[in-house]
Structure formats: structure tokens, C-alpha cells
């Protein structure tokens, strides 16, 4: 009974956090789906999003949510830049090259970030209020973040299914060679996809910054979570990633009700391996 109570208290919170986890993972899984690249610069880009929020709120004194659109735009451009500079040349190379290329981008961003910002923690002292729902405390920042996530998910869905470039992206993901034959400008589409992927990661970082303190090294934890979520929802399936994020958020919320919280990562990663073995296409993917 006590556990049930605790579970109900932690559930809404985990769920809301799950939206943002999902948004970050969506970026990772989109890039994987379109070009079979595991983007190892995902974590640092999330961190850059966090610091953008910090500067917008703490240095410019603006509401952090005003920053969402500029962060998205900068994320998009940064992604296109990374693709052009580091990924394009190796996109058809041996399967490992793209891993190494994105890992070097990871090192470059973290190195410059460390020199400029040090590895000290930063905090965005922002609050959007809170209210009680039964025993649970619901934080305003998490509600707003969930709404922003839903807006981005909806926007991404419309973009992929209703617009011309979006359809091109899906065509390239499906079969790049065939898409090229049909006249799809594949290089530009790949760059755009990479840009959208990093945009989602940066926005997610910007939102997470309103919840937790962070440092330049924080991104790697969220990158790992994005891997787990990507697999839960099916790699290459952006909408699945949102559900994967929700599942992870809920798990993180309710597992501590039953056992010590230091066991959370054990359960998370064992589940991750289990899903990979049993349903590599994800919980929502078609069964092979």
C-alpha cells in the first residue's frame, strides 16, 4: 500500500521527464534512421543547448522559453555544419568511420567548452511554480517542457509526412540509391536530417537546463539514455522514441519505490540488452 502510494506520487513526474528524454532521443534516432550513423556528438550538443539556456536566462535575463526557437535554429545550423565538415566525407566509408568522425566532434566541442566554461556545474535558477496533485508535486517547468516536446513532435511529424523535404528525408531513409535515381538531392537531404537531429537534441538540452544543474560533461549521461530510448522505441523511428522516452521516465520514477535507487541503472541497462536481444526493432517496431 505504501509502495503504491509512493508509486503514484512519483509517476507523473517521471512521465513528464520522459517527454524531454524522448525529445533528445528523437534526434539521435532520426539521424540513425536516415543515414545509419550513430551520432556520438549527441551528448555535447545537448550540453550546448543547456548552456544556451543558461546564457539566455542568466546573462541576458530573458525568459528561458524565449530561447527555444533561437536554440532550435542554431542547433539546425550547427548540425548542418557538422554534417558537412565531419560526416559527409565518410558517409559511404567503412562502417566505423562515421563513429570516429562524430566522436572527434564530441572531443572538439567538449575541449573547447572546457577551456571556455570549465567543467564546473552551472545552474539556471528559474522556477515556473508548482502545484499539488494528490501527494505528487508537479513542477511548472516540467509541464511546459512536455508541451514544447509535444509541439516539436507534432511539427516533426507534419514535416516528415506533409512537406516535400520531409518526404525526401523519408525516401532517403528508405533507400538512398533509389531516391537519388528519382532525383532527390541526397546530400542536401542528409545534411538537413542531421541538422534536424541536432536541433532536437539542442532543444531538449535547453529544456533540461530548467530542471537540473549541469556542466559541460553532463551530456554523456543523456546520450546514454538516448541510446536506451532509441532501442526501446525502435532505432530509426522518431515517434517511437517519444514513447521510449516516456517508458524510461516512468521506470526511473517508479523503480525507487521498490528498491534502492542506486539499482536504477542496473535495471535500465539490463532491460536495454534484453530488448536488443528479443526485439531489436523496438517495442513498437514491426516484428522481424
Amino acid at each position, binding site marked *: 500500500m505504501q509502495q503504491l502510494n*509512493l508509486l503514484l506520487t512519483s509517476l507523473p513526474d517521471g512521465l513528464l521527464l520522459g517527454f524531454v528524454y524522448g525529445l533528445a532521443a528523437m534526434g539521435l534516432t532520426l539521424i540513425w534512421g536516415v543515414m545509419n550513423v550513430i551520432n556520438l556528438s549527441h551528448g555535447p550538443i545537448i550540453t550546448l543547448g543547456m548552456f544556451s539556456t543558461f546564457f539566455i536566462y542568466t546573462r541576458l535575463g530573458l525568459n528561458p522559453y524565449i530561447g527555444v526557437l533561437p536554440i532550435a535554429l542554431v542547433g539546425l545550423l550547427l548540425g548542418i555544419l557538422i554534417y558537412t565538415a565531419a560526416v559527409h566525407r565518410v558517409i559511404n566509408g567503412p562502417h566505423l568511420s562515421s563513429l570516429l568522425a562524430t566522436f572527434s566532434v564530441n572531443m572538439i566541442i567538449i575541449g573547447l567548452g572546457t577551456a571556455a566554461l570549465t567543467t564546473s*556545474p552551472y*545552474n539556471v535558477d528559474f522556477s515556473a511554480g508548482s502545484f499539488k496533485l494528490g501527494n505528487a508535486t508537479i513542477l511548472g517547468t516540467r509541464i511546459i517542457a512536455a508541451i514544447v516536446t509535444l509541439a516539436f513532435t507534432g511539427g516533426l511529424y507534419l514535416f516528415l509526412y506533409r512537406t516535400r523535404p520531409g518526404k525526401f528525408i523519408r525516401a532517403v531513409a528508405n533507400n538512398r540509391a533509389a531516391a537519388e535515381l528519382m532525383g532527390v538531392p541526397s546530400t542536401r537531404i542528409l545534411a538537413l536530417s542531421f541538422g534536424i537531429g541536432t536541433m532536437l537534441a539542442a532543444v531538449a538540452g535547453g529544456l533540461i537546463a530548467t530542471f537540473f544543474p549541469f556542466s559541460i560533461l553532463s551530456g554523456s549521461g543523456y546520450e546514454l539514455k538516448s541510446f536506451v530510448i532509441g532501442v526501446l522505441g525502435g532505432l530509426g523511428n522518431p515517434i517511437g522514441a517519444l514513447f521510449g522516452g516516456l517508458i524510461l521516465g516512468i521506470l526511473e520514477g517508479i523503480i525507487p519505490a521498490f528498491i*534502492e535507487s542506486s539499482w536504477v541503472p542496473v535495471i535500465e541497462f539490463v532491460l536495454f540488452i534484453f530488448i536488443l536481444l528479443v526485439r531489436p526493432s523496438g517495442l513498437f517496431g514491426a516484428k522481424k
Partner: protein
Amino acid sequence: MKRSSTILTIVLILGLLLAGCGGNPPTEKPPEPAAPTQVESSVPAQEQPTTPPQPKEVTVVIGFTSSLTGAQEVSSKRQVNGLNLWMQQVNDAGGIKLSDGTVVKFKAVTYDDESNKERVQELYTRLITEDKADFLISPYSSGLTAAASIIAEQNGKIMITAGAAEDDAYKTGNTSLFQLYTPGSQYLLSTVDMLKTLDPSAKIAIVHENDKFSTAVVEGLKPYLAEQGFEVVLEEGYASDTTDFGPIINKIVDSGATVLLGGGHYPDGSTFARQLYERKAGLKFISLLVAPADSKFPELGEAALGIATSSQWELSATHTPEEAAALGKEFYGPTGQEFAVAYETMTGDKPTYHVAGGYTAGLILQKAIEEADSVDPEEVRTALEAMDIFTFWGGVKFDISTEAHGLQVGHDMVVAQWQKNEVGELKRLVIWPADVATIQPLYPIPSP
């Protein structure tokens, strides 16, 4: 085009090879040829007072790594600042004058250990053999120090440890470490004493980072709580990279706890404190390790109010010559105010206990050299083992038994809490022990 890419490639490969072979230049040049060991061998100091004084200057090299990057950065940098301040002061004052007329000055050589154990041993070996370090200061954190201590022991170098509180490293049978901090297992004992007077019926939740230092603190805390008759309603470890403390806080509230003791290091501690505030956990008292002792902590805003910490040293409760006199011990070095003013002049920042720790590490080395009247490691070691003094940092005395050689036994901790002053600024004030407290504990913490 093709040719140019070939050339580029060859250059790159050559570059790689060169990089691999390249020697690693030290951060600073090795000291002048005047090696300190020559001094003591030529002049067995006090026994031959008739030797004509030859004013000669030796430079003692102090080697250490610090975490310029990585998880331990915040506290590590403060420790280095403190040490640098001491060194600057002693050198500006003309160094230490030994009885044979030798003037001892100091110089630091340091590398970045990246808060990572992989290269710590490599770097300390380099400090000793390439940079000819005479004395060592420990890295920040217990894990890094444990690895470095083996190199110190191997080379017979004295290592004064600051920021390496966990007890285990001193119980391995080594004889080179000298600990400045009160050991980890005693960190929270004075907090328990205080609770005993404030609220003996408090229900305690122990929630701590699942790492070496914090676990050692908790292991020392639990038996003492039981001895004092407190009820522990929750004991929980969390992973070091935890960011969402929501479920844990729900668990604390659910357990009916009124007091929280725990935390870990800076990143997780500040995250924890912020969420305790946001979620209106309604606890009467919260004590977290390390994080609230840092001057960055008020960046959390209102969330910092009422958070307490065990502190190795606080300016407002600094130790005084009068205190030393009452105990019949010698007071050595500057007063706390003098130290604080000098530090603020140098950095514009208020000193924390990590700064004071770094400074005192240098200060006791200075004292030991003066006592030994020599820079010979063995004589300095003997002086350290015999040391029983008072500084602004408090008592300094080492365990010299073989079971726990070098463990600090002379130093006590204080409890400090973030409270608001008349103009509403957050200040970290000493609330315990009662005789040095500058203000009453804020108990219970007002609900937000």
C-alpha cells in the same frame, strides 16, 4: 590533387609518430642545480655551530596534480589557490631561514589529472623524477590520493594530503601520508551532537552518493546515530550521476523523516538541494556533504537557505591564539582574518575550507621544515610525526601508529548553515559547536 593528399597523409603519419615519441616537457622548468639534498649532506645543521655561515638559497619543489577539469574541479581549484597563496607569502617574506643561514624558498610544479586515475601515477612519477619534487601535496579526492600515495611511498616522498578524507588510504600500512582533514568517518558526528540538543526525537533519513568518500562518511555515521538513540527511517544510496532526485525525495517524504543527512560532492549535492526546495520536502533540517561548503552554492538562490554542511574550517569560527593558549598548545602562522584578507586580495573571493586546507598544507610543511631545521625528507618526516600545534585551521596532530599512520587526530569540524542576514543576503554561518557558533541554528528550516 592526389599528390597533395599523399603528402598530407605522410606528414600526418610522421606527426603521429613524433607525437608518440615526443618527450613531455614539465609545466615549469626544473629547479636550479642547487638540489636540496646537497644542503643537508654538507651541513649537519645544529651540530656544527662554528661553521661560518654561508648565505645560500635552496628552492624546494612542491609537486602535485590537481583536477583542472572533470568532476572534482570546483573543490580542487580552491585547494590549489590556497596553496599558491601560502607559497607566495612565504617566498615574499624571504623564505624560511635555517640556522645554518640557508634560505629555503618554494616552487610549485603541477599537472592536470583530469579527475581521472588513469594517469595519476604517471604524473606523480614525473613530478618526482623529472621535476625533482622534494615534497608532494595530494590530489583532491580520496580515490586519486590512494593511487598517488603508492608512488609517494615508493620514492620515500612525504605527501601532505588535503581533500582526501576517507580513512582507508591511511590504514594500508604506508608511512608517507600526512592527513590534514578530519577523517571521513567523523564528518557528521558533530552534526549528530547538535541534533541531540535540538531535537532528540528527530527521524533521520540518510541519503548519500554511492561513492568511496560518502559511503565512508555514512559508515562512520550509522553506529554513532544508534549510540545517540536516533531512529533512522531511511538509508539510500544514489548513483553519482543522478540528476532527477524526484523519486528519492518522494521516498524521503514518505518515510516520515524530519532530518536529512547525506549528499556527496558538488554536482550531485547542488542538484539535490535545489530539488528538495522545489518539491517542498518540508524537512526540518538538511545537512549535505561538500557542496554547501562552496562559495558557488548560493547560485541556487532560495534553495540554499537552511542547508547545512560539515565544514573543516569556517572564517567566522576560525581558530585563535587564545584557544591554543587555553589548550596549552603553540599557535603557528597567520590568524584566520589575516589569511582571509590576503586571499580576498589575491582572488576577490571568500575563502572556503578547501582554500584553507590548501593553505594549511603548505603551512605545516613550512613548520615541519623549521622544526627539522633541514629540508631532508627524513628529518621533516620526524618533525611531522612529532607535530602537535594549533593554526587558524585548528589542531594538527597525526596518528603515528603503524595501523593508521598519518591519520589526522587533532582537528575538529564545525557545522555551518546557509542563513539570511539582515539585508536578506545568504551567508554561511557557523551553528555548532556552541562555543564557536556565531548564530543559532535555523531549526526547523522555514517552509518555502
